[in-house]
């Protein structure tokens, strides 16, 4: 074989040889470290319990499951005001018999509290601060056991006489200044008023103690 012929074939052989070892494709890892391959549809997706956010997999929070590209609440849970998934507020505020300890049993809010108006309602017990209570509820730490007290019914309702406030937690009609129903007979020592209210001594006006907005109590 002529020399130049051999050289040509050598060059040709070199040309057609693929760049062995230069391959970057890894058939066993086509999705990178965070994602996993779904061979059924030839896509990369996050592992169970996480979702793709900006190219990164982010784990879903407690009581959440990954649904496509969103974290959804597990069955039986709902997203609360704080954005977390929690049991639905079923039973909160439901009427109950405060003399029957089990009248709220089986519900998330299984404590039957006696309202200031005398009726009963289902709520949460064993709180230590209002932040542990449903929105609008106040942790009645003055009670034993402490429980989440509902917002006083009738509070702020316009009135002309106490009959207008009858049957409400805010059963006293302050008809002189605010002309609104307020919660009467609070305890100055325990300050057993809802959040943002304080117990005010109005005895010099011949009125009972009243829960009034903080800062509104006459000196």
């Amino acid at each position: 074989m002529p020399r130049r012929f051999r050289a040509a074939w050598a060059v040709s052989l070199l040309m057609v040889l693929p760049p062995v070892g230069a391959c970057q494709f890894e058939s066993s890892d086509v999705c990178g470290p965070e994602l996993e391959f779904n061979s059924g549809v030839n896509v990369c997706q996050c592992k169970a319990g996480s979702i793709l956010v900006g190219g990164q997999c982010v784990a879903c929070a407690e009581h959440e499951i990954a649904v496509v590209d969103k974290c959804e609440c597990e069955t039986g849970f709902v997203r609360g005001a704080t954005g977390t998934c929690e049991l639905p507020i079923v039973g909160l505020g439901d009427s109950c018999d405060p003399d029957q300890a089990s009248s709220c049993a089986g519900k998330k809010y299984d404590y039957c509290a006696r309202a200031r108006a005398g009726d009963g309602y289902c709520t949460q017990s064993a709180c230590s601060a209002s932040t542990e209570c449903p929105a609008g509820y106040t942790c009645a730490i003055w009670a034993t056991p402490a429980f989440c007290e509902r917002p006083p019914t009738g509070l702020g309702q316009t009135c002309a006489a106490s009959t207008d406030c009858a049957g409400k937690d805010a059963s006293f009609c302050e008809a002189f200044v605010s002309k609104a129903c307020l919660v009467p007979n609070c305890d100055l020592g325990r300050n057993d008023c809802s959040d943002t209210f304080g117990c005010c001594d109005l005895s010099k006006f011949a009125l009972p103690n009243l829960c009034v907005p903080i800062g509104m109590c006459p000196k």
Partner: protein
Amino acid sequence: MRGTRLALLLVLSALVRTPRVAAQEPVPTPEPTELDSAPAATPEEPPPAPSAPVPASSASGAPEVAAPAGDAATTASAATSPPATPTKSEPTADSVSAALVANEADASDAAGDTASEDVQAHPFEIYGFADIYFAAPFYRPNSPYAAAGLGSHTFFSIGNFNLYLSKSLDESWSFLGEVRFLYAPNGANDPANPGTRISTQVGDYADIDRPFRWGAIEVERLHVDYRHSELFSLRLGQWLTPYGIWNIDHGSPTVIAIQRPYIVGEELFPEQQTGLQAFGQAFAGDLKLGYALGVSNGRGPMDQQRDLDYDKAFTGRLEAGYNGLGDLRVGSSYYRGRYTNASFPLIDASTASADRKVLEQYYEQSFGADLQWDYEKFLLRSEFAYSERWYQGGVRKVVSPGQVYPDRRRYGAYVLAGYRTPFFDLMPYAILQHYVLGHDPVLPQLDRLRAYHAGINWAVTPSVTAKGEYVYVIFPDAASLLTERDTLHLVQFQLAVAF
């Protein structure tokens, strides 16, 4: 979307966009050209002009040899040979040297101003090609093939209508532009509203607003060449990627078959790139060695105008030819680049800064090998191509919410064999293709395909080529998606003309 892509794969992008390649066989031409006798041509080969020799391709994608009279098959493999006599369809640099010499000689004898002589010596040329297509697909009416817009009916179609604009600026500098006229986007699937066809129908302001449909123009390539020597030329602009056979030779009149092979049509290498390319070739008797090296923007959503990352793509090709046993050429090509798609940067007035969001970014590399062999009336063409892309921490393209593209590896090959008979210049040919799609999320059920073609190529005249072909495509791993009735049978015809 899946359906559309499916059909595109299945059938044949060329049904909507007929093959733009020539690769195979130049049209027989009346003027034989002595191989290896002329200086190298620098420009890409255009389709053959009606009475001009047809160039074949070099490592750079530049046209080379003109076809011997009456047998284009021989010409096609002459890529290993030095460039040939200039032709009307190759107006640049040395490819037109003979014409230039003649023109210049005439010009030197003539009185006249310099401008006139220049026009004579370096004329501005317009030429091109077109093809008309007819297909008879055979599959059930609601087959996914129909999603390619083929329907299940027989149909006529205008395929390519391409014009070349070229000028040899002097003995070293030349220019070549190619544009394609399209009916698209009229009738295409609207990506913003899948399932709805785009309509370009508007009122004709020149005809009391009677309706007409406007179309589009695609710039196929546009580059300026500088030829320093046979061993070294430069090309700046948008050029066809110098790889394989089919992507370089260009134009339906010179293509043996009707459609591009899958490995070419699916662009395992980018079809075009915008950047700078160096190329050349050297000869030693019957042997030729050619090369091409390119740096470009690489692949991207708007790579003709912008590169959306700092990485420049690299392209390389080596080619060897031997004329001792017919015409034999082997070549190999390599491409590596980074694809980046990013949002348009918006200015935040509060910070006086512009920010953009990267939407997809991956690296890719491709390797290809090709073989051409012409022996008397017999010809053989074969290409292998391999392509892989990997994201390597880059942003993966979203397939659907929560799902993104995997790294992919695609590869395939085809073999084409033909024989030019003495009977009316008829050439029966056959093609076998195999293509592995590799983790395609758009077509997850289709991992690979095989296609079988049998056809006849008839060089009616030097500028008119008629083709008829039967195609059979199967998807070995797609039993869950396609039934036996979905196996594609297609009968198709094409009439291609160079002008």
